[in-house]
């Protein structure tokens, strides 16, 4: 009986050491507020939409000071142009020429831009400014309107340009 108890106690200790179970359950609405991740298939894209024209306005007010007219860059990163240069001896890597997915453009602007006030844009404005940036080099037409359905379908010029070098053990 006594030995049995010790055994049980040991087992119990073992289990509790391996699993503290102190995590607090997260409710679905909490997760929805926390989750900024946009997956390549569009999972995570919020409701709303934005046109190229609306985006041009957002861009001139909130982005152009750092990224230049039409995303040409200066003083900060160049955002547009460079399509067709990646195989040349002067490759120009921009969000438009190099990034494989439009979802990444949306995801990054929504979480990180504008630099001095990240996460200050409305979702409609993020759709719009994404549409505007992609329209400059004709990746989307000048009358494009992007939303959760159309954005993941945009085919970026370098969509198939990346080779996955991660080799899982299993």
């Amino acid at each position, binding site marked *: 009986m006594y030995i049995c108890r010790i055994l049980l106690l040991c087992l119990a200790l073992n289990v509790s*050491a391996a699993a503290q179970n*102190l995590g607090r359950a*997260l409710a679905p609405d909490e*997760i929805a507020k926390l989750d900024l991740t946009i997956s390549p298939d569009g999972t995570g894209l919020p409701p709303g939409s934005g046109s190229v024209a609306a985006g041009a306005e957002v861009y001139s007010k909130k982005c152009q000071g*750092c990224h230049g007219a039409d995303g040409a860059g200066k*003083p900060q990163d160049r955002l547009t142009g460079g399509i067709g240069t990646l195989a040349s001896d002067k*490759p120009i*890597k921009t969000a438009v020429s190099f990034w494989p997915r439009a979802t990444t453009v949306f995801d990054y602007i929504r979480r990180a831009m504008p630099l001095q006030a990240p996460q200050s844009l409305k979702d409609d404005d993020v759709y719009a400014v994404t549409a505007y940036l992609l329209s400059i080099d004709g990746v989307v037409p000048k009358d494009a309107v992007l939303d959760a359905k159309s954005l993941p379908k945009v085919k970026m010029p370098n969509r198939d340009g990346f080779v996955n070098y991660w080799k*899982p053990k299993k």
Partner: protein
Amino acid sequence: MKKREGFVGSDVFVAGNGLMDRRLLLGGGVAAGIAAGAAGLALGQSPDWMKTPGRGFSGYGMPSKWQEKVQRPFSPAPGRPGTGSSRTPLHLLEGTITPNGLHFERHHNGIPDIDPARHELAIHGMVKRPLAFSMENLMRYPMETHIRFIECPGNSGGYASVQPAQTTAGGINGLLSCSEWTGVRLSTLLDEAGVQPGAKWVVAEGADAAAMSRSVPLEKCLDDAVIALYQNGEAIRPEQGYPMRLLLPGFEGNMCVKWLRRLKVTDAPVDARDETSHYTELMPGGKARQYMFLQAVKSAIVKPSFGMAMRGPGLYEISGLAWTGAGKVSKVEITADGGRTWAPAALGEPVLSKALTRFRLAWKWDGRPSVLASRATDETGETQPTRAAWVAQYATGQFYHFNGIQSWAVAADGTVSNVYL
């Protein structure tokens, strides 16, 4: 000249241009040959600081004021003060552990000042029980301690430039630091949340003003990944992710997400900005390598290096750092004749996995121009490529993940400059 003991005889030279047997470091004798430097001090008279009481106690000690030049160099681009990096002054430090205030920094939009009482780590996505962990609760989990290096995948990128950068060893390689990290094993928390079948990746996100985000293979998260809470015994520094950082031993520093607030378990990577725009390498032909996570085997001589002056012919210690994300460094070789002959260096014991290893070798410099280089091999058999072989893999201007052989030229006047072999 008087015959010196301990290292005479030509058998101590094991490679060209004065490289000596690595065992000579371990015994005495070698030091006797080191050329005397500055003029002798007037010993015998007690200095002032012996004749007056010293300073009192302090709550948090600082380095000697005579060390005030030991600083992280940084030069932020205009208009983006919180975006960029500062570097560990490797050439001004010894041993393998980086002091916390000198750990390199790479921020994407400044250092947040996080109140730990208002910070939680969320785990959600493909898990049975989405969970949040407060700091108070995390502290109650079993912890583990490991010495690990962290290296930015952009480290030593200057080596990709056409002309060798004339800057210090820290200026070139200082996006590299090594600390003793303590924290909770990530697999413990993932087990508690219950990873669902089909899950393969974990998207990690920081609570900074860039919400820095990276996709991490689940395999790594269930292996040696740690939620780091302590750095060299004290709470992790704000620049390193206070109150917590994801530590992925041997993987790109950028993936060791600082100010960690969220882990989303997914079936696929998300092509985040910092795994597409940055930290990928364009190859000739226009395709780019992506998800190259491992920081490959690498080494750098830090003594002598750019900015140091050799004081004439004589005995010198060559010393430097070697590391590999694949595990342990197994061998470091040094050349003093521009790569013609190589001698094995002594490795500082214990050689630890995914940590910095200090190497040393005695060198008898005859005063003639010499080219020094180091070449490391790791326990998986990988050896550093030449710079030319490394550069040939990629398109023009690519600089991430440089791990080629590095070299220094010592001129007859004792000045040291960066050269390509």
